[in-house]
């Protein structure tokens, strides 16, 4: 097998500020952030009550954040499309969690009890629809069909 081209072994750690509201967490959207959930379904990946959720943005598409949710197996990946801006995603927003994949969307809610799981994938050409992917990149639900 041909060898691959070598690249420098780099590791970059970017510290991010994280604010925690009383019943949820603020997530800084400009670069990303982590949020600890106090109300976590035990996914087996992290201890119950210690739920890591990360969301970060692609600088080339500031209105299209990429989010990773650690809630529930399988591990879901969110890639925001054009609908992200319409959903009101913004820096420092408080988000709310839902348990239903069909209901996954950004919903500013200052009194949330369940931090939001952002796992709707909006296709660039979709208008209101979207796809949900599993951790292997397979489409598990197609909202546009």
């Amino acid at each position, binding site marked *: 097998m041909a060898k691959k081209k070598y690249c420098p*072994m780099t*590791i970059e750690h970017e510290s991010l500020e994280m604010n925690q509201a009383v019943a949820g967490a603020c997530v800084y959207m400009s670069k990303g952030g982590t949020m600890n959930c106090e109300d976590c379904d035990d996914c087996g990946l992290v201890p119950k009550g210690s739920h890591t959720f990360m969301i970060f943005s692609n600088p080339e598409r500031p209105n299209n954040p990429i989010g990773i949710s650690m809630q529930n197996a399988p591990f879901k990946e969110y890639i925001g499309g054009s609908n992200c801006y319409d959903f009101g995603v913004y820096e420092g927003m408080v988000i709310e969690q839902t348990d239903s994949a069909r209901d996954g969307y950004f919903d500013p809610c200052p009194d949330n009890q369940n931090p939001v799981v952002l796992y709707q994938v909006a296709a660039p050409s979709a208008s209101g629809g979207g796809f949900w992917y599993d951790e292997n990149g397979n489409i598990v639900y197609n909202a546009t069909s």
Partner: protein
Amino acid sequence: MFQRNEDFLLREIAGEYIIIPTGKSVSKVSGMITLSETSAFIWNLLDTPRTLEELVSKTVDAYEVPAPRAQGDISQLLAKLSAMGMLVMG
């Protein structure tokens, strides 16, 4: 022997290798950790205890890099990972 801390999970997102701290590690390492492809290669090898020599050997087998450079780079990477609490000593 070197081995990764299983509290840190590697995910490939949009072509980037992102490490996510989970569990208790979140309180120690917050933010975003990004690896290059070769760093991610080493990280994946650390799922089991490895010696530096093993890591160098596998890197040289997979990449076009002379062993002395690979050893130096891997040593530096391991030092950084250890400083961040991302390794456990096997």
